[in-house]
């Protein structure tokens, strides 16, 4: 039980650090779009090389 006297203040410090980090993330704009990033990983396509736009077509069936 005596360990509480050290562990609880230690936890307090950790909370303070966690909140500090969170505030930084908020100011960094990481919470400005809460929907997009969740979906964007699903659409992962290999980056196409930079080519003139008309030439990047897939095969179009007639």
């Amino acid at each position, binding site marked *: 039980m005596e360990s509480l006297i050290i562990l609880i203040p230690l936890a307090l410090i950790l909370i303070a650090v966690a909140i500090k980090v969170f505030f930084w993330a908020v100011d960094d704009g990481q919470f400005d779009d809460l929907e997009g990033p969740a979906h*964007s990983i699903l659409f992962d396509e290999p*980056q196409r090389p930079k080519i003139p736009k008309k030439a990047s077509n897939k095969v179009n069936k007639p």
Partner: protein
Amino acid sequence: MTDTRCFHCTLPVSEPAVFFAEVEGTQQPMCCPGCKAVTEAIVAGGLENYYQHRTESANQVTDLNRRLQEELQVYDRKEIQKDFVRPATPASDSQNDRFTASLLIDGITCAACVWLLENHLEALDGVEQVSVNLSTHEAQITWRRSETALSTLLLEIHRIGYKAFPWRADQQEALLKKENRLFIRRLAVAGIGTMQVMMYAIALYSGAISEDMPEIYRDLIRIFSAIVATPVIFYSAAPFFKAAWRDIKIRHLGMDVPVSIAIGGAYLASLWATFFSNGEVYYDSVSMFTFFLLTGRYLELRARHATARAARALTNLLPPSCLKEVNGQYERVPVAELQPDDKVRILPGDAIPADGVLLNGSTSVNESMLTGEYLPIEKQQGDTLLCSSINVDHPVDIKVTKVGEETRVASIIQLLQQAQQDKPAIAKLADKVAGWFVACVLLVAIFVYWGWSGIAPEDAFWITLSVLVVTCPCALSLATPAALTAATGYLHRMGLLVTRGHVLEGLQSIDHVIFDKTGTLTKGELSLTQVIPFDGCSYSQEQLTHLAAAMEAHSEHPIARAFIVHSDSDQQSCQQDARDVKNHLGQGIEGTINGTRYRIGRPDFAVPSDRLEPPEHDGQWLLMSSNDQPLCWFRITDSLRPEAVNTVQRLHQMGKTVTLLSGDAEPVVAATAESLDIRHWKSESSPDDKLSFIQALQKQGHKILMIGDGINDVPVLAGADISMAMGNASDLARTSADAVLISGNLERLADAFNLTIRTRKIIRQNLAWALGYNLAALPLAAAGMIAPWMAATGMALSSLIVVANALRLNRTRELATKPHQPTTPSDAGNVGVAGATA
């Protein structure tokens, strides 16, 4: 009406489908040339995956035209770009060519749109990086200005079916962003604090239950709980205290008052218990309560921000400009600089910038935005042209007579301001409950304190406190906002943007729905609805239509477009080619096909030798003749939206009275009302008439929903209990309406009514549950039988149940994709392009 729906925007397509686009080897039906072009552009860019990934349908798109391209080129001017384009690299770099543009994209419906936009734009030359924010619809595009013009990027955005506007990140936007970030910080402090306090609370609970915790440890944990809970109260819960203080000052009991009493009271009492080492502490309940409430408020805030942004996007357009004559040359100047007696050139398709007199020639103008009249009106030299009407035929010069405040449009705007002041208020259910609730809780608390101080004075305070904590209206104050927020978000994704808060609560009480005609129930564009051949005419109706289409292909008049839609449906018919086509202004068109001379137009133009009368008086009738022999009558009308019949039918089934209120001529309005089965209608109404019409109804106690699009509808929109504007309505109508039907699909209106019924049901369930829980716990607390851990668990559970119940509103997917109810064939036969060949 059929189940065929546009592959791109999923609006119903009238059978037989006229437009098709090939997607992954299948011919998919399309509703209009705009959607067809967009789908083809998406497929051509190799991005057809969009159609697999998307979870929401796209918005219907308008056709790209030359005019749009020219208008977009205005954005290439540096003085216009300086508002929303900034250098991507530090300005000190002299070789600086990389710029970042902030754009607002209109038409984003789901995450696949973001993917489509980013991939389509990044494939362009000179584009380095594109990031689109799904929540705010903002796009940041970094590109090299020397390689690609900004107008090209904007055009590409339009080509795949979105609209782009410059996004001026102004003060209001900065405020929204700041508010959002501050709220997330508050939420984080409350969330992390709650978790920590809850951990200590478990130790305290188990100590209290097993009764073997040494007091020194209990006090130590209590002190640390107090340390963690303090920022939660003073930082995270600050908005509640502020709002409650404001409420008390204006003597109005909102939900914030009982919330603040519970949070503040329990916190202070816990502090007292901590320092004097007696009684109970409620740090866990207080923190958790703050966190839940903040979460609810945050959802509300996000919905509010989304609508605020969307509403602002409606007004974030280029300042309108016009061609003014300066020293014999025409210069593009902002409309605001116009003075009376200025000479202005107006090109076909342009809006007339001020009231003025026609100086030379003649043209026809479309005044539907001002009057509801759907046919263009002919204007001769010396006639007055009204501000905001649209020039149809020829480039003309006008002399400005009235500008700004004096124009006819400005007088309508004044009417709008009056109407807004008289608008009836809709009371909020939650606030009514709150006032009653606060009074009850305070009375009960006083009564409990008085009762216990007689029996056990040393316990009276703690029991009263536990009553306050247990009756803390956490679930109660989450009940309504959670349901409304879920429903608003759902409507937004469905294509109905709610811009004012009272819409959802107000829709329940609406018993009378009033539609405008032109542009609302109808598409606002002309189409061919009937062909009546003369006796002895050797051509079939189809052949006649194709002949007419071949001639009209050479004309840009709106009437011509009614025919051209038909020629697209049947490729072989386009073989015919009209030669020597001549347009006779205000008269008709003539041309030669396979050696025969044809004329289409007014009866006295097509067959000058004989005075022929149209078969019926209403509608616009065109006569076609060959070599002075009459062939057939064409009837041109403004066609109904395909879903209009179904929508009106659904509204009738819900027991709403439907009225058609139009500024158009009586026969046209009567015919439209008849084909839609609308029993009440009123024609030739001026904006004043419309407003007094609904005010008379409101006096009789009716609650009115008005749907319109034109400038002439603006005063009624402002005066109605709830108003909706169509997505392609005039800017003024869109900004003065309470909600905007972005998708242009009228069925969303009926869906919204359905959703309201469900929302009300859920709000009632929530309120019943929250009140029931509080009432059940109250006697237990008053009897002194509720320990802090029971209070905390009960509150958490009831709040979660309320929120989960509200979120069910979000899952009603089937509402948006529900197939049409089949309607009677006669209804469908009267409308749409199919009628012409039937």
